[in-house]
């Protein structure tokens, strides 16, 4: 069951990330917008991250048959996804997120020491959680300014991904519990919510301009 969910999650993540990444790239090529360039990097990274983990599961299933995915492949995939989440948060001017007070900055570093004894994977998961939660909050705030309904769906999607990352990170405390499968189902829901408004963008009228920007 867990293996099946992992495969569905990573395939959906790969496809959704790739679709949004391609759309952002077309937008960047047609308008030259730096925002769309950042979104392109973000979603191609997310897509690649999911693909790496999916490949790891495939190699385990068809080649090594060890019963468990290689830990370093999982860590690599999550790290690449974290880069993607960083670029989403960065697009929302992440500088405003970090507290200016040196006291709060030192306190902010403290959790990193708490998790430094566990594997890198858990550090990446916790960083991903923070970045996704920040992106979800900023997107929801933008909804209150623009009243664009698509922003609600994207915000919910990012929030579900954040919750999924949190549960996935927390499940190492209770390894055999329902937490990990639940985190995967929540993340699949988040990816679908992320894709819904993007799928409504009418790309058929856009002519891909090879010469613009030269």
């Amino acid at each position: 069951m867990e293996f099946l969910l992992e495969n569905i999650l990573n395939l959906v993540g790969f496809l959704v990330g790739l679709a949004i990444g391609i759309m952002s790239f077309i937008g960047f090529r047609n308008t030259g917008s730096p925002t769309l360039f950042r979104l392109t990097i973000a979603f191609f990274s997310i897509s690649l991250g999911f693909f790496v983990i999916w490949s790891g599961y495939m190699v385990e299933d068809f080649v090594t048959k060890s019963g468990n995915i290689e830990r370093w492949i999982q860590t690599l995939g999550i790290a690449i996804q974290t880069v993607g989440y960083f670029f989403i948060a960065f697009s929302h001017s992440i500088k405003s997120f970090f507290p200016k007070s040196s006291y709060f900055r030192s306190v902010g570093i403290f959790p990193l020491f708490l998790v430094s004894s566990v594997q890198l994977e858990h550090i990446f998961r916790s960083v991903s959680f923070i970045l996704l939660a920040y992106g979800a909050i900023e997107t929801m705030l933008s909804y209150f300014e623009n009243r664009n309904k698509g922003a609600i769906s994207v915000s919910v999607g990012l929030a579900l991904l954040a919750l999924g990352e949190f549960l996935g990170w927390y499940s190492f405390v209770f390894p055999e519990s329902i937490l990990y499968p639940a985190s995967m189902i929540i993340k699949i829901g988040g990816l679908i919510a992320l894709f819904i408004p993007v799928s409504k963008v009418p790309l058929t009228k856009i002519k891909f301009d090879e010469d613009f920007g030269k």
Partner: protein
Amino acid sequence: MAEYRTHMKIIGDILATTRDDLQDEDGASVTYLIRKANISHSRISAILKTLVSQGLLEKVDNQGSNKYKISQPGREFLQAYYTFTNFADNFGLSI
């Protein structure tokens, strides 16, 4: 408080004015565009030069004064601009 506009938004406003809000068939004058796009003369001169060199605007010499009209690539760019503005809005971002 005045709304912050990105460079892309200013370009979108200028192109939209030359497409939808022309003074006459000859095109829009610089003064008209300054007023409609709410931008300084020095800044709009540089932007208009770029838009003409990219083929998005056509410069028309009309009795000694320059006027600007949107070209076909400009219309396509504006269509793409609106589409991807909507796309970025979904992420709470401005292009």
